[in-house]
Each structure stands twice: as structure tokens, then as C-alpha cells.
């Protein structure tokens, strides 16, 4: 029975069966090492006495203990809370408003939409450069208002320890709100017009249509926007570096800038690793349930 051609064919079928897994395996291996292996390594480091270089003396929860006693970390957490909540809420409001307005059979939608969205294509470093100067009282908006005769106008948030974090919000909203608009617009375009027409026939006002029919149908878009914006907020690093450098003082420090400065410039790698672990856990708390639900649904 087993002729040579048969075993040859057998081998080829076997190979064809294994090929898909074979093709996927390098990616899987890369992922297991560079993502999950690295995460494990950083978590391990966060329990060691690493300073300038990784070292492996076990110190238990010491780094976490010290981390939460560092003033700058608490500043960073407060800033993140302020920044993330304002960033998410304002982006969602602007995005939703623009999407609803653009959805009113607007002439020139094809021109307006790309204008709202182009900041998404820019690097945060470019955005930071543009806004840093626009917000600089000496040459930016404040100076212009003075030149136009509005002498009492002041807008020096970027130099003000209390207000500087809000300038980060302004620039970040400028960059991302168009993206939220695009997500909502896609949602609006997917709504069945027959239901709207039926409701109009029943005498529903526009406001009622939006409140009762349209907004509830945009739930998935709200959820996606929240998830995407919150993970962007937690990861925010470039914009702070370009706009304020974390200053004045450390008034605009965020967890991402804290991690970098403790790990690489202050040689406190153990504490830096601990802060990175906290960042990961925060994002995981949002992303894991979301991804789990998304993947289950499609099965």
C-alpha cells in the first residue's frame, strides 16, 4: 500500500495542515517574548532593588510603597485624573456635536470633514510646538490681543502652575476631537432612516428624535470613543514633553513622564518599573473587559 508517491502526498497534506500554524508561530513567539515576556520582566523588576541597571535583589512591595509616597507621583496621578476626564468628556462632546451638525446635509461636508480630522495625522511633537507658542503670553494669543488694543487680556495658563495642565487638555482635544467626530459620524450614517421617518410622522420633534432614537443607537460609538480616548490619555507622553516638558516645575507631570524620568534620568529603575506596572494595570482594567466582550460577541 505505502508506495513512495503515497508517502510524498501524505507529507504534503500534513505540511499543508501545519503550514497555517507554522506561519502564525513567529508572530506568536515574538508576541510572547516582546510583549508578555517583557511585561513579566518589568513586573519582576518592580519588586527588586534596581537602580541605574536592573539588579535582582528582592525587596517585595517596597517600590510600590515608596512610589505612592513620592510627591511627584501623586501630582502625576492627580494630573492624569484631571487630564483624562476633561479630555474624554470634551472630545466626546465636540466630536458628537460636530458629527450631528455635519450630518444635516451640509454643503461642503467634503471640505469640512478633512479639516476637522487632519490634526490626527500630526505628531504630538508638532502639535506641542504649535500650541506651545500659540499659548506663550509673550508672543502668542495674549500678545496679539494686546496689539489689537485689548490691553487687559491675559492668558498665561502655560506659565501658571495651577493652570498649565489645562493647556495640555486644550492641545490634546485639538488633536483628537476630529477622530471622535469621525467615529460618531460613521455611527450616525448607520442609523435606519425609516425609523426616524416613522417617528416624525408621529409628530416627534428633532430633539426627541435625537434623545430617544439616535443617541441610544450610538452606544457602541460612545463605548469605543471612551476606550480609545482613555487609553490614549494614560499613554500621553509626547505632548507633555513638547508642550510644557512637564513644567512649570513638575506641575504637568503625568505617569508616563514620571516613569521615564525615574527610570532613565534619576536612576530609580525599581520605582520606574512599579509606575509602569500601575499604568499597565489601569489600561488593562479598561481594555481587557472591552476586548473580551468584543471577541465573544463575534463568535
Amino acid at each position, binding site marked *: 500500500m505505502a508506495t513512495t508517491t503515497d508517502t510524498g502526498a501524505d507529507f504534503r497534506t500534513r505540511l499543508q495542515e501545519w503550514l*497555517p*500554524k507554522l*506561519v502564525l508561530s513567529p*508572530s506568536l513567539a515574538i*508576541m510572547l517574548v*516582546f*510583549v508578555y*515576556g*517583557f*511585561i513579566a*520582566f518589568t513586573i519582576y*523588576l518592580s519588586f527588586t532593588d534596581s537602580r541605574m541597571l*536592573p539588579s535582582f535583589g528582592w525587596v517585595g512591595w517596597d517600590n510600590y510603597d515608596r512610589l505612592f509616597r513620592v510627591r511627584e507621583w501623586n501630582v502625576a496621578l492627580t494630573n492624569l485624573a484631571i487630564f483624562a476626564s476633561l479630555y474624554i468628556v470634551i472630545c466626546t462632546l*465636540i466630536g458628537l*456635536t460636530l458629527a450631528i451638525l455635519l*450630518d*444635516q446635509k451640509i454643503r461642503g461636508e467634503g471640505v*469640512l470633514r*478633512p*479639516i*476637522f*480630522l*487632519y*490634526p*490626527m495625522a*500630526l*505628531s504630538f*511633537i*508638532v502639535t506641542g*510646538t504649535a*500650541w*506651545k*507658542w*500659540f499659548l506663550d503670553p509673550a508672543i502668542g494669543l495674549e500678545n496679539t490681543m494686546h*496689539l*489689537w488694543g485689548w490691553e487687559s487680556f491675559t492668558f498665561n495658563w502655560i506659565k501658571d502652575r495651577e493652570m498649565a495642565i489645562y493647556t495640555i487638555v486644550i492641545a490634546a482635544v*485639538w488633536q483628537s476631537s476630529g477622530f471622535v467626530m469621525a*467615529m460618531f459620524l*460613521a455611527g450616525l450614517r448607520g442609523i435606519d*432612516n425609516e425609523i*426616524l421617518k416613522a417617528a*416624525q410622522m408621529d409628530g416627534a420633534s*428633532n430633539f426627541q428624535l435625537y434623545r430617544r432614537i439616535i443617541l441610544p443607537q450610538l452606544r457602541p460609538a460612545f463605548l469605543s470613543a471612551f476606550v480609545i480616548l482613555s487609553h490614549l490619555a*494614560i*499613554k500621553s507622553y509626547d505632548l507633555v514633553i*513638547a508642550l510644557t516638558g512637564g513644567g512649570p516645575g513638575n506641575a504637568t507631570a503625568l505617569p*508616563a513622564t514620571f*516613569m*521615564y524620568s525615574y527610570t532613565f534620568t534619576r536612576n530609580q529603575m525599581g520605582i*520606574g*518599573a512599579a509606575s*509602569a506596572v500601575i*499604568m*499597565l494595570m489601569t*489600561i488593562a482594567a479598561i481594555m*481587557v473587559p472591552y*476586548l*473580551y466582550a*468584543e471577541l465573544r460577541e*463575534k463568535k
Partner: protein
Amino acid sequence: MAAASTETAIRSSNVTRVFIYLVLLLFALFYLLPFGIMLVNSLKPLSEITGGNMIALPRDWTIAPWLSAWSTAQIGVEPTGLRPYFINSIVMAVPAVVLSTVVGALNGYVLTKWHFRGATIIFGLLLFSCFIPFQIVLIPMARILGLLDIAGTTTGLILVHFVYGIGFTTLYFRNYYAAFPTELVRAAQIDGAGFFQIFWRIMLPSSGPIIAVSFIWQFTNIWNDFLFGASFASGGGAPMTVALNNLVNSSTGVREYNVHFAGAIMAAAPTLLVYIVAGRYFVRGLMAGSVKG
């Protein structure tokens, strides 16, 4: 689909419509202003910026700031201008984009057309890697790049961007191929076509749009990256974003704002150009990255 079916059935009065246009135009101004003013001021001599109005058009138009930003401005310690860093970014981005797209396409193909146990878990693991804060991998990555002896080089950055791009490209191709009729693949299989033949002859020819999406998004992300560039590239090997930040935030000497603006626009130009030329795919990539399925 006909245009009429996607447009809303909501009706509004003329007064409302005027108001709507007004709000939309104000927002357009908000989005255009910072970048537009930067462009205008990059064409002014420095004295007109420090002593004048930022909204005003230049009295003396000049391209000197652009020339300076490109070839003579002080970046770090060397007066090289941004040109070498621009080239670094291209040398870094192109291979990383191509590699991650090829691998993503194959992964997407396997995950959608060759079902096997654990495929969803593997995809979930890949997907989560898109969203991790990269701070969590910085320390071990620095070690590995050192061990491989590619620390501080463009090769190192290519590796980094390739590795952390796979999740996204797999997501794009998986979602795209999920909608591709599996019957065609099965029919080709019965006709004796092999794994790669099917990919090459059946999947790839219809993958144009998603390849465009993947190229554009990977390019935008990699070109705009700052964290990896700042962490793993040193001195002359830095990418454009890091060089721009050095230029703008260097504390020595007179702040040449006009040169900074010209540099910022140079750093923005490639991704902006891609956006203008292929905006449609840009928006699609955005959707694919946010609405999974």
C-alpha cells in the same frame, strides 16, 4: 449605496441651518488656526515674530528659516539641520511598515481562513498588545537591543516598530479577510491549491484597500513616534520627532521661532501628505482600529 440612503431624515429650519454653518465654520477655524499661523510665521524674519502680530502676514517674505531648519540649524551639538534626521525617519519607517504589513496580512489570512483551536485567544493576545502602555516594555527592550548590539541604531528602531506594529496590522487584515467569502478559499483548496497559492492568487489580489490602510496607519504611527525614538536612538541616529523636539526645546541661544515652525512643518509634511492624498483610507484605518469585529 445611494447617497440618499445614508443621509439623515432629520429636517431643520433655515435659521437653524445658518447657525449650524456658523458653528461648523468656527470649529474649522479652531482646527486650522494653530497650524496655519505656524505656516505663515515660518515665512517671516524673526524680528517680525518677536516684535509683531502673529496673525499678520509677513512684510518681508523669506524662506531663510526653511533653509536653516533643513540644513544648518543646531540639533543637539551639531549644526546639521533636520535633513539627516528626516532621512533617518524614512530609513526607519519604510522597512518597518513593509515588514509589519506582510506579517499582518499572513496572520489575518491564517486567523480567518484556517480555523484552529485557540485562534481567538491568540488574536486576543495580539490585540491586547496594541494597547499596552509602552513604558512597560522600555526597560527590557533597552536590554535586548544592547544584547543584540543594535542599541542606538536605526536597525534597532526598525525592530521595535516592527514588533509593536504586528498587533495592529493583524487586526486590520483579520477584520478585512473575515468578510472575504470563505467558499472561494475552500473551492480553491478542493482544486488542489496550497496555502501560499491561495494567499497569493485569491486573497492578495483583492487586498488593495486594506494594504493601503495598513501602510498609511503604520507609516503615520511610526513616523510620529517619539517615545521609542527618544529611548532607543542616540545622537545622529535619532528620528525626526526627537530631532524636532531637540531643536525646539534646546535652551541655548536665541529662540528662532521661525526656524522651529519650519522644522515642525517638515516633520508634519510626510504624514500630512499621506492624509491629503489618501484620506479615505486614513479614515478607514481609524475605524478599523477602533471598532473591532
